């Protein structure tokens, strides 16, 4: 398993649109992709799960990827969040 912390920078946090972009990317990978936020562990492939986490701009989350393509998956997630998720 690989993991990395990152701060969500886009203005609206993980709202429906940014979440959609995140999840659409996540489902391309075979590995499980989750992120830790506070005490909860969220499935990054589920829009509902991500929305339910209520991540706001400025919050720090930690991605955890596990599976055959875990390195690529983690890199892609970090790159996407850094790019501001389309905002």
């Amino acid at each position, binding site marked *: 398993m690989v993991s990395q912390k990152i701060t969500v920078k886009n203005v*609206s946090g993980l*709202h*429906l*649109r940014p979440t*959609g972009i995140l*999840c*659409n990317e996540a489902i391309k990978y075979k590995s499980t992709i989750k992120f830790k936020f506070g005490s909860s562990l969220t*499935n990054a*492939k*589920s*829009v*509902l*799960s991500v*929305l*339910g986490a*209520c991540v706001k701009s400025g919050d720090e989350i930690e991605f955890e990827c596990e599976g055959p393509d875990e390195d690529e998956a983690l890199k892609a997630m970090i790159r996407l969040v850094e790019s501001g998720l389309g905002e």
Partner: protein
Amino acid sequence: MYKGTSASSGIGIGSAVIVEEAELVIKREAVTDTAAEVERFKGALDQTMKDTEVLAADLATRVGEKEAEIMQGHMMLLMDPMLTGEIENSITGEAICSEYAVEQVCQNYAMVFASMDDELMQQRATDMLDIKTRMQKVLLGVASVDISALPAGSILVAKDLTPSMTAGINPANVAGIVTELGGKTSHSAILARALEISAVVAVSDFLTKVKNGDTVVLDGSEGVVYVNPEQSVKEEYESKREKFLKEKKELEQYIGKPTVTKDGVHIELVANIGKPEDVEKVLQYDGEGVGLFRTEFLFMDRTSMPTEEEQFEAYKKVAEVLAGKPVIIRTLDIGGDKEIPYMGLQKDENPFLGYRAIRFCLDRKDDVYKPQLRALLRASAFGNIKIMIPLVTCIDEYREAKALIEELKAELDQAGIAYNKEIQVGVMVETAAASLIADIFAKEVDFFSIGTNDLTQYTMSVDRGNDKVSYLYSTFNPAVLRSIKRIITCAREAGIMVGMCGEAASDPMMIPLLLAFGLNEFSMSASAILRARKLITGYSTEELQAVADKAMSFATTKEVEDYMKTFAG
């Protein structure tokens, strides 16, 4: 021939299309073969996805990318592994039918969203319920009614049309609307007028008298409907329709002309609107501004309040499009017959005498009124916005609202946010109390707008929706006329602007009286503006004084109506 209430003028001839939104009955049914049930659910999910995809593509081309985005969001939810996983688990674990599993799981998520303290998240509850209904319809084999894709020449027949259903209507295909319920001022009627589709509402038991494909002829001006009429009747209405269209064409020559009476009195001829998009119609019919922007529409058909930001965008858009022309925006008028579920209003014993409009807003300053007033103030930097307070009955209400506005102005000053420091604040005069103390109001407020629908209802103590007593509901009643005249006189004496934004402002029989009383501003459906301009420019207010005096001398509604009918032709 069937009688109803005329709701939107014009002649409609076409084939009946009965629109019934089937009520879904979802029961908890046990299943034995849960694996097969999961497959059934998956099939329905697939179909719903495909349907949604088509809908999204159609919306993108027909309406716009923004509307399509909502559907794309729905597709994401439908694809969600957490949602579908939970539904499948529920089917397998509880051995229940798909319909019920969908109901449970989606309702649950909708509740979670609705309870979040983030407004944007709360709105996702609507999306959740929407996809729930669509999946269930597929499961139950219930076809969705798609009003936007009817064949040309359709006459829409329904028990009642919700505002959101009416919004899907394409005027190119719908030749007329007939409903069993509703009234002249119900939302479907108002929207039919906005779309310029002839409509007759409140036709009792009409659904039992018509079937799909029947030829229907309706006269929206007279409020009559025929089903499979004789050839002679059909021909008569075909020629009527031609005449109506010709007259409409004639009115177009009044576009761009000033609204001035023969004796040189300038009149402001403005429009009533409900949504920001309606300003297109205002421009099309050469409205000189907006006399009433009903903000409730921004709050309806959703599961949480629009944010200050959303409201700001809506008000700003109207102000910008009208580029300096006056835009009177009425603050939230809910309660009475206009309910908004998420506002947490209790059922009032007497809704029209209860907790509504300004009474409600002043009680809910922090979560409802302040965000709206702040949005209005911020938008005032982009055009000529005026704030109108509805349903005032005493000066204290105006003073309290005004103080709140001043408080918000100070806040904006401090934050360095621009707004119009001279913004006008007026009141809607629509209660008997406000009319009686119009002289007191006129000293403090910036303008009046007379709301004749409520004023008539409150003055006559009559529920305009009640068939048994609606005969008493007439703006030509001597009591109502005296009230209107008094309000106008008080405003003129105090030197403030006085307008009218009720149905009466566009009534050809009422316009001469209002001109004689000295009304400055007439606000009506955009489509009525050119006819009103034609009428107003043909009168001289001086010559009308004698007509008004005569009309005011009668003792009964009937005498006034007969006299004005003869006068106005």
